[in-house]
């Protein structure tokens, strides 16, 4: 029994059906972790992107090193670091939050590049036109640069959302009860890993398919009249 659901080991099919609600409970956690992790990555990535673009080398250079460092070290190790080291300095986050934070940090290295590329793709000619019309720098940024950067940024961000989802199982090592962890526990208790793990694989295929289609829909829906992409 797990989360109040009994399993039925009489046949593989009965077993699969009986543990589906258990796995769905885990899937809910997977989705929550994906969403929170993604939001953290969006915010942190923007911060890194802004720092990397800072005119002062004293700011830009360390930001670049930090990004590279994050990008070149495994999520699992970063997660261990946050989970076991932060508490030594008095910062104790619940496992779920630690996991989402680790995902967000790891992916901020990637999203910061997406921001940079998106913003750089809006050419100087657009900034000059705005300057010739006396737009304030803020107005230029919010009304000229950002609207043109968004259609370039959204698809790339969408891909990372899907990647984050696929990395959530790593959080199982710090006791987060996401889908894989739940399946593993079911396996530990029934000694049948084949059914639960195969189901996780199939459910993942469905989730990524749905998420990718969602991203594509969003991308198609976004207005991008004449904005040169790529």
């Amino acid at each position, binding site marked *: 029994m797990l989360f109040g659901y009994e399993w039925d080991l009489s046949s593989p099919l009965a077993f699969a059906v009986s543990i589906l609600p258990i796995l769905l409970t885990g899937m809910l956690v997977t989705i929550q972790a994906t969403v929170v992790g993604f939001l953290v990555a969006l915010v942190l990535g923007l911060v890194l992107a802004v720092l990397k673009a800072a005119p002062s080398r004293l700011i830009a250079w360390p930001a670049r090193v930090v990004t590279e460092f994050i990008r070149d070290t495994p999520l699992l190790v970063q997660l*261990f670091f946050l989970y076991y080291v932060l508490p030594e300095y008095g910062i104790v986050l619940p496992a779920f939050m630690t996991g989402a934070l680790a995902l967000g940090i790891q992916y901020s290295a990637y999203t910061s590049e997406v921001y940079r590329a998106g913003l750089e793709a809006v050419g100087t000619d657009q900034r000059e036109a705005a300057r010739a019309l006396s737009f304030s720098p803020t107005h230029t940024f919010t009304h000229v640069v950002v609207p043109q950067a968004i259609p370039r940024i959204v698809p790339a961000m969408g891909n990372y959302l899907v990647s984050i989802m696929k990395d959530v199982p790593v959080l199982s090592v710090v006791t987060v009860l996401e889908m894989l962890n739940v399946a593993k526990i079911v396996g530990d208790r029934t000694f049948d890993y084949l059914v639960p*793990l195969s189901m996780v694989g199939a459910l993942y295929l469905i989730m990524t398919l749905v998420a990718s289609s969602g991203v594509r829909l969003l991308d198609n829906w976004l207005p991008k009249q004449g904005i040169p992409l790529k």
Partner: protein
Amino acid sequence: MHWTEYFPPLLQGAWVTVQLTVYSTILGAALAFIFGIGKLSTNWAIKGVSVAYIEVFRGTSLLVQLFWLYFALPLAGMAMGIDLRLPPVVAGVLALGLNIGAYGAEVVRGAIQSVHTDQHEAARALNFTPRQTLWNVTIPQAIPEMMPSFGNLAVQNLKDTALVSLISLGDLTFRAEQIRNFTQDSTTIYSMLLLTYFGMALVLTVIMRGLESYVSRWRTARS
């Protein structure tokens, strides 16, 4: 345990990580070519298998794949009466290679498609067979195109090897965990771990860059 005593076990683990990375990257590259080319095949069966492989391994989580190979596959084998009990090293290399291969296949496909039709027409005019065209004309030109993405995938693969510690393979992360079990000295051990991975990634990046300039030397040759 003094922190300098962490080095010998960590180095042993790092060596395992290096081997895992090398083997699975090579396996991944081979799979990337097979299925990247397969996806472009006009034979629907080959194309179908390639698409299925790419979609399944890109659509599911690496850790799920790893656990499936390690925990579930032996049971599936048992049910079929085949011995599919893979040793951890094999399961690890296989999972990493299959995963990175699926991503690589898309890179290979994209690079092959980026070779201009002009080149195919020239090859046809010289009466190359489709296979000769692929191996003598298309692929040599596509390889430099692939290298930057392959470089990123190799680093990705290096990072992903950390996951094999979860199936008890004595890689770098596993060794670090072992030491932490003894000493509970999380700050030191994880800092060393992060730095080691960072260093390995930098070395790998340099190697991949070197490889890139080697395979694209015909592009950069100067008169």
